């Protein structure tokens, strides 16, 4: 999986890419504006410095593009990178303003866009420093031109009065410009800071939730283990009595003990399922190995058969000859097969049959387990894979934990496959699930 930086950094990276696009647009915009101004409005502008500047912007923009493409950036370098970009943009825009009329150029207010965009990315402090630098550069430019330290490039044909020498105008425009920049910074920075705080809270909450979930799994694991041991002892002792090893019990006592045994057996399965569920969910890695699906089916069927008692059900296994070995977690895949086969047997009356068909398609092994059992009511179908859910037609009559299928689904999905059910009440049920030939390929 791709290592994700935090939300904010990802957004920063995305914005940096944006800025690169915006900058290309700005270069085109500068050239078009220049051509329009000189051709349509007959304004006189110095062509060479403006084109050189456009070229300069194009060069550093291309540099940024390459840098972003070839370097995996750390959080700190993303930050540094965005500051450098922002500074270069501010300087370029100031130079452009200088060559296109200085104080006479209404485009000085484009600095506001810049301020808003970058304040979203920078910290509050950085945003204010940036606002200060912008005001310093722009007002400084006005002053330098006013004092004739640098030449003034008038926009002849646009504004014919030399406002750059008008101190009252310069004071007013400097004040309006600076205050606008700082107010824009204030609003953007406070909104983005609030967002950042919210994001931190969310992140913290997510970490806490994950930890709670892990604790829950640990807890369930511990409790079910602690329940399972004494149950095994109770059952072992009951086996001793029922087997007649502790002397002969009368029929009534035997019958009662058998009832007790059945109840403890249910508890035993229940705790075992809970334990499996919490253990498998807590497990981070699949223990992948090459498996022959036919072998897996036989192992699973052998696990299930002894529990079926006297029921007469025919089991047929048809594995297509094209089915190759899969790479999967043996224990878990056996678990899935055993679970679904056990279900098929459990809910199919004596005399019925269970057919397992396996074929391969598009890198997946597709298994279909079809029974001639009691089926699932339509209204229960959407809930069949939910933990602890049991279908209405079996909840009262057959013992079960409602954990088997949810675990099967979990295992199949962990391997990158999927599972579905088709069923007709009274006719039977088909479970279909896919397992990728290699779960390794899926997870990478």
């Amino acid at each position, binding site marked *: 999986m791709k290592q994700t930086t935090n939300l904010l950094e990802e957004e920063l990276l995305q914005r940096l890419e944006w800025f690169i696009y915006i900058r290309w647009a700005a270069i085109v915009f500068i050239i078009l504006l220049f051509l329009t101004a000189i051709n349509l409005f007959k304004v006189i502008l110095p062509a060479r410095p403006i084109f050189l500047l456009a070229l300069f912007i194009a060069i550093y923009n291309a540099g940024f593009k390459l840098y972003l493409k070839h370097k995996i950036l750390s959080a700190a370098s993303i930050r540094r990178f965005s500051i450098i970009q922002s500074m270069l943009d501010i300087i370029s825009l100031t130079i452009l303003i200088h060559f296109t009329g200085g104080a006479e150029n209404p485009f000085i207010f484009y600095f506001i866009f810049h301020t808003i965009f970058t304040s979203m990315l920078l910290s509050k402090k950085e945003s204010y420093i940036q606002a200060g630098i912008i005001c310093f550069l722009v007002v400084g430019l006005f002053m330098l031109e006013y004092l004739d330290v640098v030449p003034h490039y008038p926009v002849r044909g646009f504004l014919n009065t030399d406002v750059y020498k008008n101190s009252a105008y310069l004071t007013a425009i400097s004040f309006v410009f600076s205050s606008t920049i700082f107010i824009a910074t204030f609003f953007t920075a406070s909104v983005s800071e609030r967002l950042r705080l919210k994001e931190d809270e969310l992140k913290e909450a997510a970490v806490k939730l994950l930890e709670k979930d892990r604790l829950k799994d640990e807890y369930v*694991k511990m409790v079910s*283990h602690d329940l*399972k*041991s004494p*149950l*095994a*002892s*109770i*059952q*072992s*002792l009951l*086996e*001793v009595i029922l*087997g007649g*090893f*502790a002397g002969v019990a009368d029929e009534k006592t035997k019958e009662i003990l058998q009832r007790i045994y059945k109840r403890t057996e249910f508890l*035993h399965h229940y705790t075992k399922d809970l*334990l*499996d569920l919490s*253990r498998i969910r807590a497990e981070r890695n699949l223990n992948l190995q090459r498996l022959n699906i036919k072998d897996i089916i036989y192992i699973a069927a052998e696990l299930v058969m002894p529990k079926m008692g006297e029921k007469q059900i025919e089991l047929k296994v048809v594995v297509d000859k094209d089915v190759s070995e899969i790479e999967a977690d043996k*224990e878990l895949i056996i678990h899935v097969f055993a679970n679904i086969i056990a279900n098929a047997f459990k809910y199919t009356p004596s005399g019925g049959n269970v057919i397992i068909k396996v074929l391969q398609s598009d890198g997946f092994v597709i298994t279909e387990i079809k029974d001639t059992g009691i089926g699932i009511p339509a209204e229960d179908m959407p809930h069949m894979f939910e933990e602890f859910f049991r279908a209405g037609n079996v909840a009262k009559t057959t013992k079960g934990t409602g954990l088997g299928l949810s675990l099967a689904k979990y295992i199949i999905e962990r391997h990158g496959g999927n599972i579905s059910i088709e069923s007709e009440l009274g006719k039977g049920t088909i479970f279909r699930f896919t397992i990728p030939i290699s779960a390794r390929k899926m997870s990478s």
Partner: protein
Amino acid sequence: MAKILIIDDDADIVEAVKIVLESKGYTIITANEGDAGYKKAETERPDLVILDVMMKTKDQGFQVSYKLKNNPELSKIPILMLTSVGRETGFRFNKETDADYLPVEEFIEKPIKPKDLLVKIEKLLKQK
């Protein structure tokens, strides 16, 4: 008749196994913990050891089995391991794949089914 050592910290399991085996005439000695069990194996020289996994520690049974098999004088004693913990400890109990890791001859799942227990014990004693 064969002498069997049961090592398990669960007194009820020990009792259940003991009743079943005594009914068939086996001589039973017991230990409720791994180290004591190993010492009893050294002094009593049983014909077979029934060994639990989780006792003082999660895998004390494994440690005892290694110690028994590494002692040339005790290494011939077959071990029947009691497992209710296979899945939750993450240890796998497949005889074919785990033989290198677990030097035990046979496994039996808890709860113990007397018939199953007797069949496995007879088989192990015969192989000896």
